[in-house]
């Protein structure tokens, strides 16, 4: 029983830390209507950069988190430039960056596919040393704290003039261009900010699990989409922008809790990606099928 409790606590912590990434996915997918596949690469990049900063350069763990976020932003900007200046479709631009990042991430880690952080300080270990809390409680507090800061930042930012113009870009590009906004700029900015959050999340996960791995971002975009879908199902009734952002993080937590439970029930961990993909596919299919069914049902022969 206590084993279950521990694995659930672990799942919640993971959910919160990955939730920062989900916020990034939310910006591109929900606000700008772009499915940005850079995420898989920029998440791993955040982790790799963070690990190398701490281990090889002995940079403060908090500062390395900032560097991880900056690295993610740079990755997002590359996708943004490919998509806006060179008009490559967003999905393809994201894939190109993601594939390129695989090699770059290996270079960052000096050719190794894995960098452990066993004997070095992390933000979690520092926090534990300062407060005497348990490992999980420390990670949870840090995760929730950062999530609150990021949600507040996004709530503020998307209320500003630039942020409003970005939301309008996702709504109707013709309209916002007619109001004098360069939509290339807003899209580039959105991709940059989004991947900054993704890189930050990668750095957090790396410090929490005490290693960075070249494959740690694989499938991140699907996890992000699944979390958004779950959040939408649970809290879709709430309309305010703040609650939408919160629901992205909550969705992430629920995703990892579900994951922990099905793994405990004996599911092979290798099947987890299939489950994530299925969740997203079903969530995307259901509304379309419902609509088709409704149209079919509403037809009457008539004419008499």
């Amino acid at each position, binding site marked *: 029983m206590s084993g279950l409790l521990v694995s659930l606590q672990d799942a919640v912590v993971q959910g919160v830390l990955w939730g920062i990434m989900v916020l990034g996915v939310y910006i591109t997918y929900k606000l700008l209507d772009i499915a940005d596949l850079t995420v898989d690469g920029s998440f791993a990049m955040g982790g790799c950069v963070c690990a190398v900063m701490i281990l090889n350069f002995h940079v403060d763990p908090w500062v390395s988190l900032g560097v991880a976020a900056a690295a993610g932003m740079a990755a997002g900007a590359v996708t943004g430039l490919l998509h806006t200046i060179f008009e490559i479709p967003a999905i393809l631009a994201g894939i190109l960056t993601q594939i390129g990042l695989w090699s770059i991430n290996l270079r960052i880690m000096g050719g190794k596919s894995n960098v452990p952080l066993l004997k070095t300080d992390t933000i979690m270990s520092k926090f534990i040393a300062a407060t005497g809390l348990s490992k999980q409680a420390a990670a949870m507090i840090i995760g929730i704290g950062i999530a609150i800061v990021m949600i507040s930042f996004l709530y503020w930012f998307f209320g500003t003039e630039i942020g409003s113009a970005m939301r309008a870009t996702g*709504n109707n590009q013709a*309209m916002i261009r007619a109001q004098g906004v360069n939509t290339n700029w807003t899209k580039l900015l959105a991709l940059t900010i989004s991947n900054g959050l993704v890189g930050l999340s990668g750095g957090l996960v790396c410090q929490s699990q005490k290693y960075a791995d070249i494959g740690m971002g694989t499938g991140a975009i699907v996890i992000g989409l699944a979390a958004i879908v779950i959040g939408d199902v649970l809290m879709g009734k709430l309309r305010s922008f703040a609650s939408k952002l919160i629901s992205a993080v909550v969705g992430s937590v629920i995703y990892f809790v579900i994951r922990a439970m099905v793994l405990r029930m004996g599911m092979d961990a290798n099947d987890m990606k299939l489950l994530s993909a299925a969740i997203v596919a079903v969530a995307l299919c259901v509304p379309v099928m419902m609509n088709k069914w409704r149209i079919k049902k509403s037809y009457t022969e008539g004419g008499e």
Partner: protein
Amino acid sequence: MLDIKNVRKTFNKNTINEKKALNGIDLHLNEGDFVTVIGGNGAGKSTMLNMIAGVYPIDSGKIQIDEINISRDPEYKRAKYIGRVFQDPMLGTAAGMEIQENMALAYRRGQGRGLAWGIRTSEKSYYYEALKKLGLGLQDRMTNKVGLLSGGQRQALTLLMATLKKPKLLLLDEHTAALDPKTAKKVLEITQEIVEEQNLTTLMITHNMKDAIQIGNRLVMMHEGRIIYDVSGEEKKKLEVEDLLKKFEEASGEEFSNDRMILAK
């Protein structure tokens, strides 16, 4: 005010689908001119408006507003001078955003956008009064998403947004064509009120010849990418729909076969 000199545009150049959309347009608008633009399908009316707005680059020629050459400016830069309403009511507003948010976006047309709050409390009363003047009851629904509005309401809102910050030039691209006759009439009334009140220089494309004659102080007829008839003042007031049809046949050597225009009698 607006000066268009020998503007040309060919779409799909050197392909089988080559289409000379604008064949040397010359047009000069004076401050406060309200010009209606008519012509058959494919005459280049919408293309002309899109070229002025900068949706596509022109091949040659010059477009100036108040002596400022905007020929090579991108669309978002020209927005500083130009307010626009599109034919499709969905195009002019952001459906997922509130009415007041849409207005706040439009109120900052052509200005640099920074990290100041996207909508200030002090603006809201201004928007309230502006919406009230439309007479559609939208002032009590300012926090509603625009997606909840009807096509006519959205078009009226777009019109209001285009003129919230006074534009040097207002471009109306058949902005009532997608509306039912009653709503179209209402939106047209609102158009006239706003243009008159602000003394806006306006280009309005219409398919309705009666409207083209009754509204504005000047009428321009286009055919095959050229302006073939330009009339203003007293002469325009005395025009009849039959005169326009005759003029069209004279200038083009064709029958006016657009049934939408014939029906519009």
